[in-house]
């Protein structure tokens, strides 16, 4: 009998747990440790953030699903990993603190034969003074709760606009090293859409403040498309949308501080600026879950498992190199820890070997470098890949086939909403292959021009809405869920 512990129940962890349960007999245990009681379809949080969906439409409780599927669920937060076990037991173990209201604060040590770290990001609002809704001066859409607060604040701003007073709304990235530019892009255009629907757009100045060097970068160094006989770029395509919708932009910005009604930022040329606002939704940078690792004797070995960013080191090439020296094969494919082959890290939890978007520094030494996105589709694929490897090893032995799924050989679809409504909505639908450019395989653009596309229209909105219902259905493990691709 084997015990597999999955840390985290987001897209990567939940996908891994469901596939593990599906493939392993009931004589093996699948255990999920998640500090949250609910599963959240995060891509739809932007609709909660403009009041077009309720929080209840994007979350559901995990416990009934896990009960039905025979997955042991601990509502708890992992704080330490003991990959060599302890004096009592040589099996790996995880120390957890319960967040379950019936056991809150209680600590436990859970043993494992295999561990999947899918802890996702720690929302690092603390990296920027005054950032975030909890004690800060800006809003967020990172969680359904945050998005609900943002929607209420947006509604207040719309009421002020209705009274005839001009307002400035700022949406974007709250730090120079943020990722998920696509989410901020979606939110800014959904805000624009709502302002138009309310008939107050002409009184509002909408500003997109980003760490991207140019629009359309999305943390993946932009994309090249072939359209109507021309090769064009996501830069031009995105700029066109900004021009059409009259959304202003601030590029290459690192937010230094958010004060009540004012955001202070530095740009890549080293100049510092202030922008007063009436409403600001600024995303935080991410950190790893900051787990601590101990060897069997109790000595700390965190550096063997984790990068300084708190993300877990896996089978990537982490040798220091210049940006131009990196290659597609430096990206991980098995997500296995090089230190402990029974430990995997998937989704945001694994440490990327380098930025996909070219990192830049201001003359003051400030790093302005979008971090690599590894959410959504790639996260689910990684979760499934690690699960299948573990299943093979449990059922066929440690030398069994290792499944692979490198982001340098994996496509992704990104459907960025630009407004809701079955007849009035729109979205920028993008597909890219591969996510990590491979310049040896695809000289010039780094990606397949056949499989990398972008288009704007109502069809994109329908697609995003379909994905909302499809992935919630899948996450609820309803009949046939396994046939819905990650």
């Amino acid at each position, binding site marked *: 009998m084997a015990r597999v512990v999955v840390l985290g129940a987001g897209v990567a962890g939940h996908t891994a747990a469901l596939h593990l349960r599906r493939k392993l007999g009931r004589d093996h245990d699948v255990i999920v440790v998640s500090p949250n009681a609910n599963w959240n379809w995060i891509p739809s949080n932007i609709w909660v953030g403009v009041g077009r969906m309720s929080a209840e439409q994007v979350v559901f409780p995990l416990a009934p699903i896990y009960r039905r599927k025979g997955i042991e669920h601990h509502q708890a937060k992992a704080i330490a990993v003991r990959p060599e076990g302890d004096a009592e037991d040589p099996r790996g173990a995880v120390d957890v603190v319960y967040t379950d209201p019936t056991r809150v604060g209680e600590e436990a040590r859970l043993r494992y034969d295999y561990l999947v770290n899918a802890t996702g990001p720690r929302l690092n609002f603390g990296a920027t003074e005054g950032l975030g809704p909890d004690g800060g001066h800006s809003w967020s859409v990172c969680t359904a709760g945050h998005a609900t607060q943002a929607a209420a604040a947006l509604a207040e701003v719309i009421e002020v606009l209705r009274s005839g007073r001009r307002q400035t709304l700022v949406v974007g990235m709250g730090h120079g090293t943020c990722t998920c530019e696509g989410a901020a892009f979606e939110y800014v255009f959904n805000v624009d859409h709502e302002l138009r629907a309310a008939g107050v757009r002409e009184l509002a100045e909408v500003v997109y403040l980003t760490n991207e060097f140019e629009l359309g970068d999305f943390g993946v160094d932009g994309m090249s498309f072939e359209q109507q006989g021309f090769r064009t770029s996501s830069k031009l395509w995105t700029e066109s949308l900004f021009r059409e919708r009259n959304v202003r932009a601030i*590029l290459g910005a690192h937010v230094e501080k958010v004060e009540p009604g004012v955001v202070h930022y530095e740009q890549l040329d080293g100049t510092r600026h*202030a922008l007063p606002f009436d409403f600001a939704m600024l995303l935080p940078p991410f950190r790893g879950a900051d787990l601590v690792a101990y060897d069997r004797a109790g000595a700390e070995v965190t550096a063997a498992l984790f990068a300084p960013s708190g993300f877990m080191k896996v089978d990537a090439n982490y040798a220091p190199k210049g940006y131009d020296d990196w290659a597609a094969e430096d990206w991980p494919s098995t997500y296995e820890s090089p230190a402990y082959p029974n430990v995997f890290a998937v989704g945001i939890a694994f440490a990327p070997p380098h930025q996909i978007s070219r990192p830049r520094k201001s003359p003051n030494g400030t790093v302005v470098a979008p971090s690599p996105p590894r959410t959504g589709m790639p996260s689910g694929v990684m979760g499934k890949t690690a699960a299948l490897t573990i299943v093979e090893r449990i059922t066929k032995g440690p030398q069994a086939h290792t499944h692979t799924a490198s982001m340098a050989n*994996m*496509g992704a679809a990104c459907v960025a909403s630009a407004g809701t409504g079955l007849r009035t909505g729109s979205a920028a639908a993008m597909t890219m292959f591969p996510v990590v450019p491979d310049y040896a395989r695809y000289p010039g653009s780094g990606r397949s021009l056949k499989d990398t596309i972008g288009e704007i229209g109502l*069809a994109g909105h329908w697609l995003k809405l379909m994905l909302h219902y499809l992935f919630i259905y899948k996450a609820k493990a309803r009949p046939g869920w396994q046939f819905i*691709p990650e």
Partner: protein
Amino acid sequence: MTSPTPRDDAPLIAADRVVGAAPLPTEKTLKARRNLVIQAGRFVLLNARIMKMVLKGHH
């Protein structure tokens, strides 16, 4: 309420110049983006493209 901090518009003006040079969609393009028949076709095509990518690239 907007604070009394003076606005510094230089970064916005710099980006306005870049964005202002981007192609502006024509009314015909905007209508096509909302046309139910055209968009139904695009919806099918987008799904087919995503499925192709899923089958091609996941393992």
